C-alpha cells in the first residue's frame, strides 16, 4: 500500500520518540538548574538577611547605649531581681546583669538595660516619674552577666571608680531554623562616661 502525499508529509513533520525523550531530559536538566539556583538564592537571602539584621541591630542598640553612657550623670552596674535594681557595692566584683543610667541628677529619671535570664531577653526600661516602660531589644541571649566595669586595661574593677569603662558583652545562640544552620555569636562594646564630675 502506498501512502498519499499528505500523510507522508505530516509524518515527516512530527517528532520521534527518542527526540521527545531527549528534549524532555534537556528540559528537566534546565528546570533542575533553575530550581537549584533559586533555592541557593533563597538560602543566600536568608543568610544575608540574618547578618544584616544583626549588624543593624547591634549598631543601633550599642550606639544608643554609647550615647547614653557618654552623656549621663551617673552609671552603675548591678543586678535586676524581681523588678528591683540593686547596684554593686564597693568591694564587689563589678559585673552584673543590669546597667543603670541616670541621664541627669534627677534620680526619678533613669534607664536600665538588663538581661532577663528567665526568657533570655535583653531589655531596656525607661523610668519616669509617670511610670516605667520596658521594651525587649533582643532575644536568644545566653550569658547573664552582660555588663562589667573595667579599668583601661580590661581588668574588672571591684569599686565604683569614676573613670571606669563600661563593657557590654552579649552572647547569642539561635537554634537551627528553616534553611539556616544554628548560629552562635557575640557582640561586645566598651564605653566611658564623658561628663566626669
Amino acid at each position, binding site marked *: 500500500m502506498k501512502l498519499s502525499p499528505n500523510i507522508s508529509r505530516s509524518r515527516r513533520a512530527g517528532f520521534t520518540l527518542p527526540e521527545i525523550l531527549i*528534549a524532555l531530559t534537556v528540559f528537566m536538566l534546565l528546570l533542575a538548574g533553575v530550581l537549584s539556583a533559586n533555592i541557593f538564592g533563597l538560602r*543566600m537571602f536568608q543568610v544575608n538577611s540574618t547578618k*544584616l539584621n544583626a549588624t543593624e541591630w547591634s549598631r543601633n542598640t550599642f550606639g544608643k547605649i554609647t550615647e547614653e553612657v557618654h552623656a549621663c550623670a551617673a552609671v552603675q552596674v548591678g543586678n535586676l531581681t524581681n523588678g528591683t535594681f540593686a547596684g554593686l557595692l564597693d568591694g564587689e566584683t563589678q559585673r552584673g546583669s543590669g546597667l543603670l543610667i541616670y541621664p541627669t541628677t534627677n534620680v526619678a529619671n533613669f534607664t536600665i538595660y538588663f538581661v532577663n535570664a528567665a526568657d533570655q531577653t535583653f531589655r531596656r526600661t525607661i523610668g519616669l516619674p509617670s511610670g516605667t516602660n520596658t521594651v525587649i531589644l533582643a532575644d536568644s541571649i545566653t550569658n547573664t552577666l552582660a555588663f562589667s566595669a573595667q579599668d*583601661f586595661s580590661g581588668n574588672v574593677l571591684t569599686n565604683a571608680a569614676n573613670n571606669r569603662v563600661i563593657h557590654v558583652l552579649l552572647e547569642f545562640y539561635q537554634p537551627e531554623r528553616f534553611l539556616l544552620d544554628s548560629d552562635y*555569636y557575640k557582640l561586645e*562594646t*566598651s564605653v566611658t562616661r564623658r561628663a566626669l564630675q
Partner: protein
Amino acid sequence: MTLVEVVISLGISVLTIAGIVTGYIYCTTANVKDSLYMAANARAAERLEETHSARWDTSSFPPVDELVATNFLPKTVTLDLSGSGSTLTPATIRTEISDLSITPPVRRIRVQCIWSVKGDELVTNTIETCRAPDQ
C-alpha cells in the same frame, strides 16, 4: 532542532545559571566583608574608649599620666559576626599615642584594627582622636 542548537542553548543556560549563582556568592561575600568592617570599627572604638578612661591629670601632685602607649599594648581580638558559625576572624588592635602639643598639652590617639579577608588581603581600620588632660 539540531544537536548543535541543543548544545549551544544548553551552554547559554549553564552560563546564565552560573552568572546568577556567582552574583549571589558575590553579594554574600560583600555582605560579610562589610559586616567585618563594621565589627573592626567597633573594636577600634572600644580601644579608644579605654584610652579615654586612662587618667591624665597634670594639675594633681604628683601628676598622673596613664595615657602612654605602654599601657595599651597590641592585643588580638575576635571580630563579631553573626552567621559565621565556627569561623572566627581575628584582628590585632594597635594603639599609638603621641604628643600633638606640649603647651597646651594635647595628645593624639590613633587606634588601628588590622584584620584580613580570608587570610590574604590585609585591611586596617583606623580611628584617631585628640585628648587633653583631665578629660
